[in-house]
Structure formats: structure tokens, C-alpha cells
């Protein structure tokens, strides 16, 4: 089956019901996408499918056929969100971080606090109490947006 992962077309041979999460982690060796619950509740497995943030543990591989997938590895490593998450300590243990960043990515620069909270409502973090995550996202592109 063909799909595009982080801009590169790839051909993957995996069972159609295999979770996209496992396809990415095992068949594509992209282990930056994490599993926190496997039931769509924690958001650690969030990736972008055609630009939309989804929980990859709920997506069967067959459904991703032909789609364009972006994972945390696709951000290059020096993305403003990645830098801001470390600087503001939005990542403590870090296991929720790739999913948080992917969920925040579609928000674009300088989102309002209410928008951030909404966008991340499906992403759990047990370490930070979310405050530092807000600080990271809202300061990622320079100045903070007004509340």
C-alpha cells in the first residue's frame, strides 16, 4: 500500500487492520509517535493525516491508504514548537510531547489560550499540569498572543 510519510512516498506491506501507530513505529521505524493508551484517550499517538490531527492508534492502516502523514520526525528537529517545548519545560518526561506538538501544529502561530486548550483537550499530560505547555505553544513564534 502506498502513502506519503513526512513528504516521502513509501510503499508499506502490512495487514490492512494493523494500527497506523504500529505501521509508523514498526514498518517505518518512526518511534517518535508514542502509545499511551491504545484507546484514543491520551493523544500520545497524534499524527497529522492530510493536515488533520488524529489519534493513530484508532486508524487502521487501510484507512491511511494514499494519505499524507506527518509525524514528529517530519518537523525536522528545529521547529519553533520543538525548541519552545524544551525551553519552557513543556516537556518533562517527554512521552506526551510528540503528540502535543502534533496537536498544536495546525493551530499555527500565536493562538489564543482558549484555542490551545481546545486543541489539546484530547492530549493528556501527567507531568506538567499543562501550564508550561501553554507557555511553550504561545511563545513558540516569538511574542505571546493576547489571552
Amino acid at each position, binding site marked *: 500500500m502506498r502513502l506519503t510519510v513526512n513528504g516521502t512516498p513509501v510503499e508499506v506491506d502490512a495487514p490492512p487492520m494493523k494500527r497506523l501507530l504500529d505501521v509508523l*513505529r514498526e514498518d517505518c521505524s*518512526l*518511534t*517518535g*509517535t*508514542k*502509545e*499511551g*493508551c*491504545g*484507546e484514543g*484517550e*491520551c493523544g*500520545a499517538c497524534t499524527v497529522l493525516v492530510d493536515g488533520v490531527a488524529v489519534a493513530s492508534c484508532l486508524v487502521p492502516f487501510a484507512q491511511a491508504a494514499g494519505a499524507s502523514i506527518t*509525524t*514528529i*520526525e517530519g*518537523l525536522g*528537529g*528545529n521547529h519553533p*514548537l*520543538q*525548541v519552545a*517545548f*524544551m*525551553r*519552557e*519545560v513543556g*516537556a*518533562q*518526561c*517527554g*512521552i*506526551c*510531547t*510528540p503528540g502535543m*506538538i502534533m496537536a498544536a501544529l495546525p493551530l499555527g502561530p500565536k493562538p489564543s489560550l482558549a484555542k*490551545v*486548550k*481546545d486543541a*489539546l*483537550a*484530547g*492530549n*493528556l*499530560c*501527567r*507531568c*506538567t*499540569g*499543562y*501550564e*508550561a505547555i501553554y507557555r511553550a505553544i504561545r511563545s513558540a513564534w516569538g511574542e505571546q498572543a493576547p489571552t
Partner: protein
Amino acid sequence: MTAVGQSVARKEGLGKATGEAKYADDLTFPGTLHGRTIRSTVAHARITGVRLDFDPAGFTVVDHRDIPGSNHIALIEHDQPCLAAGEVRHVAEPILLLAHEDREALRGATVHVDYEPLPVVTDPEASPTTFKEILIEKGSLDKGFAKAEVLVEGTYRTGSQEHVYLEPNGVIAVPEAGGIALYGSLQCPFYVLKALKPVLGAAVANVRVVQTETGGGFGGKEEYPSVIAAHACLLALKSGRPVKIVYDREEDMWATTKRHPCVVRHRTGLTRDGRLVAMDVDVVMDGGAYCTLSPVVLSRGVIHAAGPYRCANTRIRGRATMTHTPPNGAFRGFGAPQTQFAMEVHMDRVAERLGVDPVKLRLKNALKPGDTTATGQKLGDDTSAVAVLRAAVKKSGYNRKRVSLKGTGAGIGLALFYHGSGFTGSGEVMLASTVALETTATGARILVANTEIGQGTRTMLAQIVADALGVPYEQVEVAQPDTSKVPDSGPTVASRTCMVVGGLLEKCAIAMRARLGGMSPSAWHANRGPLRLEQRYEAAATRQWDDATYRGDAYATFAWGCDVAEVSVDPVTYAARVVKFTAVQEFGRPIHPAMARGQIEGGSAQGIGWALMEHVVLKDGAMHNAQLTNYIIPTTLDTPPMDVIMLENPFGGGPFGAKGLGELPIDGPAPAIVNAIRHAGLDVRSIPALPEVLHASPPLDPPPPARAG
């Protein structure tokens, strides 16, 4: 520029934000098998038969007879088997292990176990088996009560709590020349090593434990990893191949340790003007089926049970008992959140009875330098109860809102609390931790067994060493914890890593600096070869503790906090919600202010969850809601805006004035919230304060007098 006190770039670099950081499940070794645990489905029974309902070809199967050494998980007592042999004492107890290279095949294998039921104990207060009993006595209770003009009694209950570290437990056991290497998500590499040795016995000459990047612990990866590690090693030993066991969320919630449920009874005598003259406290904790760490959780719980208050006549009795439920274990706060919840909710009831403002009552009784705690520990200048209380009242607008929120269905409440830094009593002396520091081509390397689990260990220890050694922070690196390479610097628990381990590293760095005689570590390394120094913990001659009588200096120092919660209660659904949270905490001095703030915000959020929503539903001795769908932890929509104030009061016994911080923030939120609910007009004495609990709570009528102070 010095590093301590600055929010320097973290040692983990960008790895956690780029997906490069490798957690246990991200590691692969050629030929790896997946492991699975077959567990009991009944609370207490004799096993009368085990039948494999699948074709065993391609499977590795391990039961208790395959254990080459001794069938126990070494901890305080050796009562917990590695694999059940004949009897199970709780639901989810491991009986059999399977491994296969194909996960689907592994999942499809069914095992049938026959049981002969045995009597089940689920009520900790009625349990005939006690793991530990502790008595703390100060002054004379009879004399105290004789002086009392007002008597207030109350019973308070706290529920269990699941850690929900976002990365479930996971390990990989890898056979290697001469032994086994165990890689895993864990807090205490040497605890795991000490547990593996007796299980594997002479069959494995060399065992080493390596911590992989760890996705949260909160105590949940203090003692439990010994169990999963032993299982993976047994499968690896039998199959001769690497074996990975990673629990899914449901298994992790169903089978692993949780916070001890607790019942606390208070009987308190006061003078009419609000002075505490007698405190009688009774604590019962539910240990679960095996002892694990219950005696020490109880110990910290009872020592903190009288709160940060002065009272000449105090008796605290505590016991941890056995029930047929999965063992309870370490969880951030380690017993102190439970007992301080009771104390602080009780204090607001006392204030109400006396008709005084809760702040005034606390100010009158709060511990000050020169006072003694319940164990008789004399406090010094590192005591900040009054300072944090005053700052919290001011910052939160408590007095004003106490009046303005009255009768609106909303409320404001506070809690004053403290938390002992490091191991209790003589714990650190017995641990005798050792740290090491060595020169490298580019600077210096820290060698400790303490783990980074999100709290920033690597960064914070490197800051301390950089300044003590007089080198730039960038030149200090931290070795990955591997028991074959680093000394045993003790577990990463008890808010001890910064104060105790950081303190040892500071000493070590000072000694190295003297040896280098003005040369930089890298120059020494290039010209004179590698230099490695060790530093071992030495007992402070001034600290006295008697384990038999529970008298003396329980902790090297205490950190102090006052939390204020503003809560609204929905008049229809009875759901309580924290709308604003203020945390004022004094923990000596922050080494890395941004990370310290993160500890306070994160710990507060966990406390808010424990107070209002996290409900472990036990049914027939097992967690009935072992899913994140119905065990709810705070999301972005449940956590309030937080105001965090870090007061400084440098502690001479810690590195650069630092005390312990990790656990303090979880002591305060629950009582502050329940006191706010009380202010809103409902008499709640147990948590989680779910809507049904609020609904069933007697309204306070007439509402408590609003007297601002």
C-alpha cells in the same frame, strides 16, 4: 556565569521534542520475543490446575518452577512471589509467563486456571493481618485533654489513585556474554538489580540494569519494575533471546501499584482561644495483598499526620493492613498527602467550631523556628509555615473572596502543609549512597544511579556540579544509569535527588576542584590521565533518630507550602471545579526555576485530579475501571490557571541552599479544594469529591460565619 538559579538549557537537548529520545518500547534487539503475563482473575484462592489451551510450539512458557533462584521479589519483606505457586492473594497476580515472536499469536493464546476459593478480606480496618504498626507519642494526651475547652472529632477518607504515567511499564531483558542486561522504564536501577539477583540466583553470573528514557514515574516505577523485570529475565533465560514486556494501559492500571487508600480519625482538644492542646490521630492504610513499601509509606504518613502545627500533647497511631487487592505502593507524597488531607480539612472544621477564621487558627498554631514536631524534632530557621501562609493569603485575595464568594455557590479554601526532604529517620545513613565524578576530554561526567523521569535530574545535578567545580555547565555531562558503570547513589524517591544526591555531588566536585589545583578537568584529563573521585554519604552528627520510639529528627529539613483553591459547584450536577489555584511553596532555593515551577504545577494538577475526579472503582478486589475512558485524569479543560510563588529560604544542609521539592506540591490541593467546597456550603470529608459525594454531603446550615481576618 553561574548555572545554579538559572533556567539553563536542559541536558536532554531537543530529544524529547523531536522523537529521538528512546523509551523502552522504542528499543529493538534482533530476535526479540514479546512477553505476556497470565494473571489471576480471583482475589484469594488455591490454584488447583493450569492448562494451556493452545499449541505451545514457538512459545516459551515459564512458571514458578522455572525460577532458578528464590521465588520472591526482594523488598522490605520477602512475601511477594515472583510467580504464584499454589496460592493467589489478589486479582491480577502473575501466575504464568508466555513469550512468542508474533504479538498476535501471543495475544491469542489462552490459559485456563482452576481455583479453589479462599476467604477474601477487602476492608482494611477489619483486616486480621497488619504489616506495620507505628506509635508516635509526645507529652501526655490525658493532661492535654484535661486542659481542653473545646473538643472536635472527625473521620476523613482518601481514595486510591492510579499513577497514569503516560508511558506504561516496559522492559527488555537481553542475554549477553556472561549474563543478562535489563533495559527498562524505571526509577531505581539498584532496586531492580537487588530484586533480580535472588530470583536468577547463580544461574546468571552478571546482571546489569540500564534505565531507558522514562515516561513518568511518580513512585509507580519505584518498586513495581522489579516484578516486570524479573518476568522478562526469566523468559529471556529460558528462551535464550531478548524478551520485551510492555504493558498496555489496561494491564498497567489493573495490575500495578496505586496510592494507599487511607482512613484518618482525629480527636482534637483546644483552648477557647484556639490553641491546640491535645491531638489524637489514628491512621489506617490499606496495604493490599503484599507488604511492598507499606511500612515506609505508613511511616511518612504518620510523621506528617499532625500537620505543620505545634501541640505539646500528641499521639499518632498508625497501621498498614493486608487486604486481598493488588499491592499498593509508592506514589508521590508517600502517605503524607493522605494524612495532611485529614489534618487540613479537620482544621477548617475546628475553625468553624470555634467561630474563627481558618487563617487565624493556623497562624496561632503554625510551627515556628524553635518549636518541636510530633516526633520531637526541633525546628530551625528553615521553617516557613507562617511565611507561606501569609504570602498565599495575600496573593490569592483569600480574605476578600472569603467574604465576596459567601453564598454564591462558589468557595475559597486553603491548606497549609509541609514535606520532609530525603529518607525518613536513619534511612539515608543506612542507604550510604555513593556518587562519582570523573574527568573527560571535554570536562566532567557525573556517575549516579538517580534517574531522569521528567523532573530534570540530569540538568539539575549538572548545574550543581558545574558551579561547585567552577566549570561551564556545558562541560558537565551525566552518564546513563547502568548498574555496571555507576555507583549506587540510592533510589530516585523521597524528594532526595536534589538535596541528598546533589549535596554529595557538590562535595565531590569541591574535592575534585581542590585536586585539580587550578587546572580544568579536561586539561587534567589530557595531561595527567583520567581522574575519578567518589563521595559517600556521612551521617550528620547533629541528627538523632530512634527507630524504636519514633523520636527525634525525622528529616534533615522540611519544605513548606500553602495552596489556595477557588472552586465553583454546579447547583444542578453537583460537579465541583477548580477555577483558580494559587501555590506558594518554599523549598530552600530553586536550582532551575522553570523546572521547579513545572514540579509545582504538575504536582498540583495531580492533586486536583485526586481530589475531584480520579476514582479507582474496586469491585471484587480489582480495579473495575482500568481504562483512561473511565478513570479520568485532569485534561486541559479541567486544570485551572495556576499562580505559583516560590519563596526562598536557603537551607544550609543542601546544595546551594536547596531542599527537596518533588512531592511537596501534591500535599496541598486536595484539602484546599475540600475546604473551598466547605466554604461553598457542603460538608465533604472524603475524596474523590465526585458529584455523588457532594450530592450526599450535608449542607452546612447555617453557613459558616464569614469573618475575615
